[in-house]
């Protein structure tokens, strides 16, 4: 193999850490989608010049510490209540960019009420919804989004609808609400998907600043620790099992 030297100069740099990502070491498991999504959020805020205007609401869940990684003002919300917290921040500071970052347990189980009603009021915020079909933080229990047959700590024999009900697509439900202007489902498991997801996030942020109503960007995401799979296997499992049930693409765009 021929030897070559790489010289890193600003002009030949094609990739870097966004300025808004802090140098704290992330606590996320290797291969977890949270880290990649954080990076996209930071890039969008930076590129839109909104760093001084943005207030993030972090949830209870693995991403509770999002506030350690993106260098903006943050408020950490009680489990499920991010949309209510964001509602007040945005109403009191209408010129600010306000977003929540929530897991599927946070948004689609304990926080269903707050999430649906923020949609219904048409709050001018962005909701970033990380659907990894599991409760990552508490050690891999069933989430409302857990697929049928999927094994978790509380469905050791697989999710049985007679016992545990069905996985549900809360984003599709929210799309029916008049206060919502944009709902899309994205993923970050391939470079192409990362690029698409970033575009979607940017659109959501633009909608909020334009006062068009609530935008929700769902990410179908991996939790390799919870799923007990390697990062590569998780990506494959997600593609084969999650995406057929949670198809990617825009659900509502007005």
């Amino acid at each position: 193999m021929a030897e070559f030297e790489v010289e890193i100069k600003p002009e030949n740099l094609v990739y870097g850490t966004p300025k808004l990502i802090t140098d704290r070491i992330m606590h996320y498991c290797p291969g977890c989608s949270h880290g990649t999504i954080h990076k996209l959020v930071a890039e969008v805020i930076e590129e839109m010049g909104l760093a001084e205007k943005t207030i993030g609401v972090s949830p209870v869940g693995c991403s509770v510490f999002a506030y350690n990684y993106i260098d903006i003002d943050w408020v950490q919300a009680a489990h499920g209540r991010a949309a209510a917290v964001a509602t007040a921040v945005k109403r009191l500071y209408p010129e600010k960019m306000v977003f929540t970052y929530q897991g599927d347990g946070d948004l689609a189980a304990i926080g269903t009420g707050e999430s649906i009603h923020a949609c219904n009021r048409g709050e001018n915020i962005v909701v970033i919804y990380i659907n990894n079909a599991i409760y990552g933080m508490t050690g891999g229990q069933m989430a409302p989004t857990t697929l049928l047959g999927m094994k978790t700590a509380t469905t050791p024999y697989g999710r049985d609808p007679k016992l545990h009900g069905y996985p549900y697509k809360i984003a599709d439900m929210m799309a029916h609400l008049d206060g919502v202007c944009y709902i899309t489902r994205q993923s970050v498991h391939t470079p192409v998907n990362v690029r698409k997801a970033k575009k979607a996030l940017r659109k959501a942020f633009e909608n909020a600043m334009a006062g068009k109503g609530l935008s929700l960007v769902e990410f179908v995401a991996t939790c390799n620790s919870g799923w007990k799979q390697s990062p590569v296997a998780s990506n494959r499992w997600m593609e084969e099992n999650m995406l057929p049930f949670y198809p990617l693409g825009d659900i509502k765009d007005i």
Partner: protein
Amino acid sequence: MKGNEVIAEAAVRYGCDGYFGYPITPQSEVMESLMEMKPWETTGMVVVQAESEVASINMVYGGAACGKRVMTSSSSPGISLMCEGISYIAGASLPCLIVNVQRGGPGLGTIQPSQSDYFQATKGGGHGDYHLIALAPNSVQEMYDFVGLGFDLAFKYRVPAMMLADGVIGQMMEKVVLDDPRPRRTDEQIEQECGDWALTGKKKERQRHVITSLELDPYAQEVVNEKLQATYRLIEANEVRYQTTATEDADYLLVAYGSSARICAKVVEMAREAGYKVGLLRPITLWPFPGKPIAELAGQVKGILSVELNSGQMIEDVRLAVNGRVPVEHYGRMGGVVYSPGEVFEALKEKIINKTK
């Protein structure tokens, strides 16, 4: 004006930035009055009818995180629902005002007046080591005044304040002296007053602000707790408020707050006419509790009756202050039933006067 309506009037006049609530009897008039006043067209105050008390207290949390003057009001079952959120507000050292116009419990209980949320208001309510500054108005005027006082104290110490009213005062009509309206603080004033912690958008020249009550390291969390406790000691040293009536020569003491104190003021008159030297101490702050003046009076009187619309809650704090030096008994009614002055006078004679002669 009616007690509940006066809360709305006071909020707007005080320059409150936001009210977030959910209807519940006997205090729904607070939000109804605000919606009728439309303060968003005058002072710019935001009023939101939330989908639940859980949502409204978390809206208060979000607003308080921004350094804004925000409040909610509810009644007993609604306050129970808010307790997790109140604990977060206390844990993150945020100021806000919560009004509880108490009704009878437990459970859905009655819509009639009660004082059975004393423990919840003074001992925490939610989880963790925290306190609220708890103010107990005994008139419509005080319901008006304590909106401003509650906000002032909350911001002075960065703690949540609670006005613990009851259905009697909330529904009562009285004359009220209104003070001059104050404008809401500008963004610059908020920056000046709360600029070292509030969410105002991260400027280049400062560190990011993070409002959180989470700390994984137990030693660091202990430091957070110690700071909270230091604040509470300061509040106990500076902010005890109470009122005494005819205590100078009293042989017997009534301790009562809120509507019960109104009734007991009448009992003092009746007892004095009948030749008994009875005085009244009315705690205005339920937390911090006026234990010291009660302890001092315990050196003078023969016995104390704690008069409360509950099964005996404040009596624990009275007994703690008295420390066994004189008999302390309780008289109360429950479930929304309100005693008459005559009834309390009879209880005073039976439980204290006749037993300590």
